[in-house]
Every structure is written in structure tokens, then in C-alpha cells.
């Protein structure tokens, strides 16, 4: 699973990684600022625009921009690249056109696209599936295939009790084959 918890956790189930206080990426930098008697701690991700801002000041030119990037903003809704870098939602459809490459790069970095699709550079589309208006049909056999695979597995390990349980379910599905959804 994508989130690897620590060994001493009670279950191996998920622990959310510590998040950057500015955006939602994992923490890479801890920034401590001492002004007079006040000490402030901030945790930030590696490419945090906030880090650059703190280091170089508010007026630092192109503070949050990576080398080669210009000050991009969506012409329709005004959402800026800086806003997107700190995890602000997109503002409109046009954002997808303006920030397309950046969005794909972020999705890959956050492991939100299957590796197979992410690595397929030739194919320009990351979407697999229907377009508006198309009605997909779930093959009625899809669930049967899953159950049959499971049945096969249980028979292999000679677990006849579980096999019977699976057979019952297969029987229930094949006896009333068409749609329960109407």
C-alpha cells in the first residue's frame, strides 16, 4: 500500500505522513526562526514556495517559481501557479489547459497515476474510460470471474468450507443472472 507505516504501529495500516504546513506534501525541511525572544518552527516540503519566501523575503522575484518557469496564471479565473503549488484547488476548466503539464507532473509525484500510465510518454492522455454520455456496461460476469478465481484458490489449498461458501455465492448470481439494479 502506498502509505508505509512504522514498525511499532499497532496495525500496518496507514499513517498519514507529516504534512507541510503550507501545502500537503511530506515534510522535508524544518525551519526555525528566532526573532528577539520569539522562536517559531515551521515544517515545510522540499520545494515549498514558502521556504523561498522566508529565505529571500516577500519581494524575492519569482519566489515560488522553479528555474525556467514564468509567472503563470489562468486567464479565466486568475488562479496562479503559486497557488496551485501550495495545493489550492483549480478554479475552472481552463486551469487544466494552462497548467496541464504541471498537473500531470504533480499527479505523478503524488503517485496518483498508475506507474504504467505515468511511464507511457507516447500516449498524451492520462484518462482511461468513458467520455460524457457514454454508458458503460459492467460485464455481468465480472463478479463471477472474481468469485471463480477465489474458488480456484481455495480449492488449491483444500479449504472446502470456504469453497462451499464461494460456490453458494456463484450459484446465487447465476440463478438470477440479469441486473438487480432496476
Amino acid at each position, binding site marked *: *500500500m*502506498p502509505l508505509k*507505516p512504522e514498525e511499532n504501529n499497532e*496495525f*500496518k*495500516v*496507514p*499513517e*498519514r505522513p507529516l504534512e507541510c504546513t503550507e501545502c500537503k506534501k511530506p515534510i522535508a525541511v524544518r525551519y526555525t526562526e528566532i526573532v528577539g525572544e520569539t522562536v517559531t518552527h515551521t515544517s515545510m516540503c522540499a520545494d515549498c514556495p514558502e521556504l523561498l519566501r522566508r529565505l529571500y523575503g516577500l519581494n524575492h522575484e519569482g519566489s515560488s517559481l522553479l528555474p525556467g518557469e514564468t509567472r503563470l496564471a489562468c486567464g*479565466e*479565473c*486568475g*488562479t496562479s501557479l503559486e497557488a496551485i503549488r501550495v495545493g*489550492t*484547488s*483549480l*478554479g*475552472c*476548466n481552463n486551469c487544466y*489547459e494552462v497548467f*496541464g503539464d504541471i*498537473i500531470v507532473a*504533480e*499527479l505523478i509525484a*503524488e*503517485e*496518483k*497515476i*498508475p506507474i*504504467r*500510465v*505515468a511511464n507511457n510518454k507516447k500516449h498524451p*492522455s*492520462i*484518462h*482511461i*474510460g*468513458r*467520455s*460524457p*454520455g*457514454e454508458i*458503460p456496461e*459492467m*460485464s455481468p460476469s*465480472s*463478479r463471477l*470471474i*472474481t*468469485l471463480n*478465481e*477465489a474458488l480456484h484458490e*481455495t480449492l488449491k489449498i483444500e*479449504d472446502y*468450507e*470456504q469453497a462451499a461458501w*464461494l460456490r453458494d455465492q456463484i450459484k446465487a448470481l447465476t440463478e438470477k443472472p440479469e*441486473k*438487480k*439494479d432496476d
Partner: protein
Amino acid sequence: MTEPTPPSNPILGLSKPWVENSNSIWLASTISLYRNVEKFMYPSKLSSDRQKQIIGLVGKYLFNEEGLTGPSIVLSENTSPLEKEYLVEHFLSSYGFQHAHSGEAFIIDQTGQFLATVNDHDHIRLKIIDCQGELESTWSRLVKLETSIGKSVTYSFLPKFGFLTADPSFCGTGLVATVFLQLPALIQIDDIDEVLDKLADESFLITGIQGSPSEIIGDVLAIQNNYTTGVSEENIISGLRSLTTKLLLEENRARKSIMHSQNPNVKDQVSRAFGILLHSYQIEAVEALNAISLMKLGVEIKWISGISIAQLNHLFFNCRRSHLMSFYGNTIAQEEIPHKRSEYIHKALKEARLLIE
């Protein structure tokens, strides 16, 4: 137990889809589709007039929808904090609705299985909760609703990104499917880590109930697709079916092994859970949910009689805060809740008998 007359409030009076659920492992599944409407900016950038337009538009089409039974629309400015919490509990939502402000709306129907949120992150988020283990047909139902609305409104779509969502990590199919499985036996005999490692698949995320990432409450694991893009809806659903079937088999195996060995530690845990539920004077939700899960295990192993799995599933949903408060007509003070919860549980379990000697 006789319940007081249901309140006429559309949210607090929602019918409860889990009443008939007699499955001891499969607690529920929810499927959502996130959609935006073309030519409108996403809700965060939308003026309040345009937000109202979206509510009107979505409301109009959903109200004529054959697939819904007596839908009602509730504007979030008219929704009390209790009602918002009730919706989160009812639909096992992974995020709260407490921040829903004016310009957002909820649409529900009388089956208690359907929720549409309007202008909450995206223009439309359609959701169905199912408590009968019917993942595939639930998805078909949802898709029918979605395509039917799509005949009247044009959804935001780009061939490259699929259906567009305000948070790009949901673009593509815009489909979020979650199955909630209750796995007390695997957790009690400490096999859960090994099983999850064996079945591990980066296509699915496993969290606790209601999105709590690390806290497992009531032995419930929420299994959800990690990718909404780069994978087809059919594959998400069948992958989820396949993974959950494997987990069901493992849990069944663990239960058999506990039954055969009459595992003394588990016996002790189930007996204690029985004691806590029947003899506490006040009880917090998490403690109650954990104990109810062990009670269910006890019923399955025939260590407990006089109560059915369906009744315990009912109790599991109903003893959470806002459901409990609504049961008592919203008349109980905050500090009284733990005591009222104990009272409620005592009544629900009055026929239950512990057969462990």
C-alpha cells in the same frame, strides 16, 4: 426497541439502509462520482449568484430523476451542525460537512441511500451508500443517474484529463469507491499485517472508518481506490471486488481458526466487550464501536446468543453521536451523551446472552 416517531426533518428522518444488513463482515460500501458543469468556474471561484444557478440546475434535473425516490434539497445555510454531522455519519463520509457554507446544498432521497452535494469542492458530487454488498449494481445505478443528468447539463471534460475536478487528484473517472469491512478476527489473532502485506496493491488505499488515516475504529478498514485517473471505472470496481473477496476469505479463515482453537485470549476480549456494553454507565463512541465489533465476532463464533448480526450492525450505526442525539429528539445535553449511549445500548442488547462459561 420501539423508536420514537421519526422526525419530519428530511435529514434526521432519513431511512436507514443498514437495517437489513445481516453480513457480519461487509458493513457498507459507498461510491461517488465527482462532476463539474461546463462554462461555470469551480465552486471556490464562483460568485454566489452563479452558485445559486448551479443549485437550481442540479436540483431541477435531480428532482425529475426516475432513479430517485422523493428527493429533497436542503441548503447548507439551513442545515444545523447536528444535521451536517448526521450526514457524515450516515454516508460514512471521509470528510466533514461542518464547513459547508451558504451557496452549497445537499440533495437526499427517501431511500436514505443517495446523497448529492452541490458546490462542495465540485459542482456535483453524487454518492450512493449500499449495505448489501452490491458493489457492481450500485455503481450501475450511480452511472445511470450521472448519465441521465448529463443529458441536460454538459460536464467539464477533456480527452486528456477525463472528467475535470477542482482537485486534480480526482480527475479522470472522478470515481471514488470505498468498501468498509469489519475484520475483528484478523485483528485479534494479529494476522492483519501479514494479510495486508500479502494482498498489498498500490491501486488501493486502506484507512480507518470515516477517513481517519491511522486510527482503526470498530475493526473497520475502509478500502478505497487510490487512482481515479489512468484506470477505467470497470477496473476500479472489479479490482475492489477482487481485493475485498480475498480479505473476506482471510477473515472467514481467521474466524474458523478462533472457533476451532477456542482461543482463550479472544474469548476474554469478547467477554469483556460484552461486559462493557451491558454494564457501563457511560460510554464513548469509539469504545462502544470497538466492543460492538467484538460482539459481532462473538455471535459468529456462537459465544453470544439472543442478538442478530443485523441488530448489531444497526447498533453500530445508531450509537454514534448525531444518530443518538437525533434518536433522543435532540434534547440531550452534550455531557449526558455517554450516559444516554449506555442506556441505548443496554436496551438494544437486553436479550443478548453470553454463552462463554
